[in-house]
């Protein structure tokens, strides 16, 4: 029947040939469209084989008040800093483009060798191209009294970074 459903174009109605052609090309487009979408999704893996972010950083007695410790730097890329109130970790990734900054004890500054960003020992960015402060990881004591750090959860905003879980209050 030439007078078919959907003949809203006025005088012209849909023929069988046009319908079948439309269905055919639509299935072609769907097939290759599906392949395209699948190919794009292919590049985003669901499981990552990356190193564990949690580590043990010794015990509170291992760190002096006022110390910026580089003991975990090579293996875990983090400093352990102790002050009067307690202890926290700074993740040693410059917030500019990801280099490892260097702690200079004589200047009491953390400086990035790549593009010259300067940070204070609390992580605050004070010079150079770094757009935000260094991140602190989650720090806590486990049941055995060891310091456990988790770099997976991070915070760098003043205020939030000085509260648990990103800061561990300790008796001096």
């Amino acid at each position, binding site marked *: 029947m030439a007078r078919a459903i959907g003949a809203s174009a006025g005088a012209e109605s849909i023929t069988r040939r046009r319908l079948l052609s439309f269905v055919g090309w639509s299935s072609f487009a769907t097939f290759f469209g599906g392949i395209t979408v699948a190919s794009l999704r292919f*590049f*985003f*893996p669901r499981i*990552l*084989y*990356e190193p564990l972010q949690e580590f043990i950083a010794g015990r509170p007695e291992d760190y002096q008040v006022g110390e910026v410790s580089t003991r975990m730097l090579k293996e875990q890329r983090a400093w352990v800093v102790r002050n009067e109130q307690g202890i926290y970790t700074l993740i040693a990734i410059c917030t500019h*483009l*990801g*280099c490892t900054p260097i702690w200079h004890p004589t200047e009491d500054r953390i400086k990035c060798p*790549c593009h010259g960003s300067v940070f204070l020992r609390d992580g605050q960015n004070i010079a150079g191209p770094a757009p935000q402060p260094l991140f602190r990881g989650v720090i806590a004591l486990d049941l055995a009294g060891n310091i456990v750090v988790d770099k997976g959860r991070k915070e760098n905003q003043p205020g939030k970074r000085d509260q648990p879980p990103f800061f561990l209050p300790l008796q001096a």
Partner: protein
Amino acid sequence: MVKLSLKVLQDTVVESQIWKSIFRHGYTMNRRNRLLAVTNNVFYHILPTKITKYGMRMRFHWGAGIITFYLFLVLTFTGVLLMFYYVPIVPRAYYDMKDLQHVVPFGNILRNVHRYGAHAMVFMVMVHMARTFYTASYKPPREFNWVVGVILLTLTFLLSFSGYLLPWDQLAIWAVTVGTNMARATPLLGHEGPFSNLIGMKINNDIRFALLGGTTVGSATLLRFYVLHCIAFPIALTALIAVHFWRVRRDGYSGDVQAKE
């Protein structure tokens, strides 16, 4: 006994069906054979069948384009040879590179030709771009070929960037760390760029994640960059070079036009 002169032997060969199926024109130097030698050859197709000596003057084109293409061929050849001794996994990559330098026969010169050739190709492609610009060879009808050339330039840089990671040394890892950290600041597509929150971009689903195959430069990155460097980008580059050459053939050498008065 038939006296086999060299001429008879030669004629037997060149009049045979096998020979004629391969070589479709004669060897004698006449106008017809010279023309057929170019038109019948897929590799010579870049050249028109006739071109004036004026049109080919070095002062105009500097040979920068053909040098770039020659370097690309050198890089492909040396690259394929390097692939026989390099495995793109973290426990092997750096040590295979060292083996190529010290253990593989001619490995050091092979690696050096590949590396320095890459630097030379990037340099020459920019010389070619400058020459094309300063001789105004981008004007109609050649505007689209300029666009194709820019895409080729981008692909050349991408090939350089992906290849830089493969030795897996300090330079490589940090260069890619910094480069991909710049990518995370892309608008919309990067998780630290403007408008990224509008489409829910996070560290594990933005363009940096797709490039690295993870959240940091690691084994997934090495493999991805290896596949891109050896397969994906060269295929794209080859296809676009074909278009680029075809356009030159179609529009003619820009230097072959006599300036009006």
